[in-house]
């Protein structure tokens, strides 16, 4: 794919701000992205907006036009709902609109407000990304679903809780310098292993936090960037999306995520680059086991090999393939409907050089991977510095 540029990016701080409305959060991210892009808001032709649980969390449906209004955008707006992959899908929608020549300037991103409700209510809201009849009624929570996957993985390929603890330690370490991250504190393997168990074999430190936050990008056509002399050095060169059965029970192997494989295959073919060209990766580590499954589905590791990658130092900031230099969902935070956008924001900053961990990136190509539910949905983007 050619001709799609990231002109500007914006984030709110990720954390617990229960009194901030969704519209305030998204407006802040969009305002930051427009300022970063140097684009007039009148030029924005479309808003592609991701959100998952706003109908429960804020009792607010029909959010897209509300968010356009909040951001001062007078344009058609559409909400994407794909559970935790909502904003990844929104970015993909924006990218496809630009690539198809249907628009020159599009804002994409997402928002989630999660800490304004009791934790049990938020747990319930997250659980509905699973199959209501066959999973939720059988007590499957969001951590419980990934625990089912982790147990399957250990049974089929081996690995242990300590391997997963190294994923958490790595991502916390990466979050320390990130000004947007929820948890800017390093942890130890011992702390991770001794944390309370949520759903065996996963503990508290295997799990991402509950987070309020928003993300936004201004995506433009190359022609628009040139005509308006925008500083838009990063291109989105590949986009892919994969799908799978919603319930784990309907899939062949709970330890594998074929939707990620499919999304990656499409994105790499679209971009015309190979896995060896990728210098940094942001993957969907809602739980530590999810980072493992993602790296295998993306093709960076054979099945059964990624569980020890962090422990071996291969995916740390100074490893061969730095993974989640932002801190990932695990430490940067996971405002569900905003995450897919924030991954592209962070990768853009890493490639442009204005991210505090940018020095760890040795190359010009980065990959983002955003997953919904237990990866019934996956969206992959490839970004490249082109100027």
């Amino acid at each position: 794919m050619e001709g799609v540029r990231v002109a500007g990016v914006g984030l709110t701080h990720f954390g617990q701000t229960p009194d901030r409305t969704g519209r305030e959060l998204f407006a802040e991210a969009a305002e930051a992205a427009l300022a970063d892009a140097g684009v007039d808001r009148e030029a924005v032709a479309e808003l592609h907006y991701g959100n998952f649980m706003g109908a429960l969390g804020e009792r607010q449906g029909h959010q897209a036009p509300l968010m356009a209004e909040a951001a001062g955008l007078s344009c058609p707006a559409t909400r994407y709902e794909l559970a935790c992959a909502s904003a990844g899908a929104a970015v993909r929608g924006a990218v496809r609109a630009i690539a198809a020549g249907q628009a020159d300037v599009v804002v994409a991103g997402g928002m989630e407000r999660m800490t304004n409700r009791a934790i049990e209510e938020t747990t319930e809201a997250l659980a509905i990304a699973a199959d209501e009849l066959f999973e939720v009624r059988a007590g499957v929570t969001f951590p419980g679903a990934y625990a089912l996957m982790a147990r399957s993985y250990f049974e089929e390929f081996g690995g242990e809780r300590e391997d997963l603890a190294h994923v958490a330690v790595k991502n916390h370490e990466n979050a320390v310098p990130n000004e947007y991250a929820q948890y800017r504190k390093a942890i130890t393997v011992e702390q991770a292993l001794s944390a309370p168990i949520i759903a065996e074999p996963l503990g508290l430190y295997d799990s991402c936090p509950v987070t309020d936050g928003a993300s936004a990008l201004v995506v433009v056509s190359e022609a628009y960037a040139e005509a308006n002399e925008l500083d838009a050095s990063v291109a989105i060169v590949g986009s892919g999306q994969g799908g799978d059965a919603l319930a784990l029970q309907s899939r062949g192997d709970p330890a594998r995520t074929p939707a990620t494989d499919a999304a990656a295959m499409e994105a790499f073919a679209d971009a015309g680059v190979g896995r060896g060209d990728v210098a940094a990766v942001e993957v969907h580590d809602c739980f530590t086991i999810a980072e493992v499954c993602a790296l295998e589905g993306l093709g960076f590791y054979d099945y059964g090999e990624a569980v020890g990658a962090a422990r071996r130092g291969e995916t740390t900031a100074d490893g061969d393939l730095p993974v989640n230099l932002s801190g990932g969902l695990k430490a940067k935070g996971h405002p569900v409907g905003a995450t897919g956008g924030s991954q592209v924001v962070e990768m853009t900053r890493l490639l442009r050089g204005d991210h505090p961990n940018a020095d760890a990136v040795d190359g010009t190509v980065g990959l983002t991977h955003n997953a919904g539910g237990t990866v019934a949905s996956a969206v992959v983007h490839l970004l490249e510095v082109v100027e």
Partner: protein
Amino acid sequence: MTDAGDSEIRDRGYDDWLDALETGDGYLLRCPNNHASLPPRLVCPDCGSDDLTEEALPASGEIVTYTVVHLGTREFNDQTPYVTAIAAVGDVRITGLVREVDAESVDVGASVEPTVDKNPQTSDRVVVFRPSNMIPE
């Protein structure tokens, strides 16, 4: 629903399947291409065939994976810790609660029988696995 009240709307297909499982007459759906699935279905999820026939579900299956949930939703918070598992039963996999056995005794490969019980907090019916032989084969 079962006896939650006359005003309760059933989930057609799903509740019919639970009715059958509850009386020991559980079934799966089979298409001419030999794919197996669970209702409610209009077409086979694998090939799209609309020629689905009911076939008896084996009385027992094996646990494929399980978890012990310590942090539940409001519909389960009085029951933690509880065990949720996926079991392979014939050619389908089913998700359910494991009851009548200590969490420590549950293991992958254990033999279980799918049946139907209630969530005491909601009165929703739910698939429950009871041990037929909890020692892995």
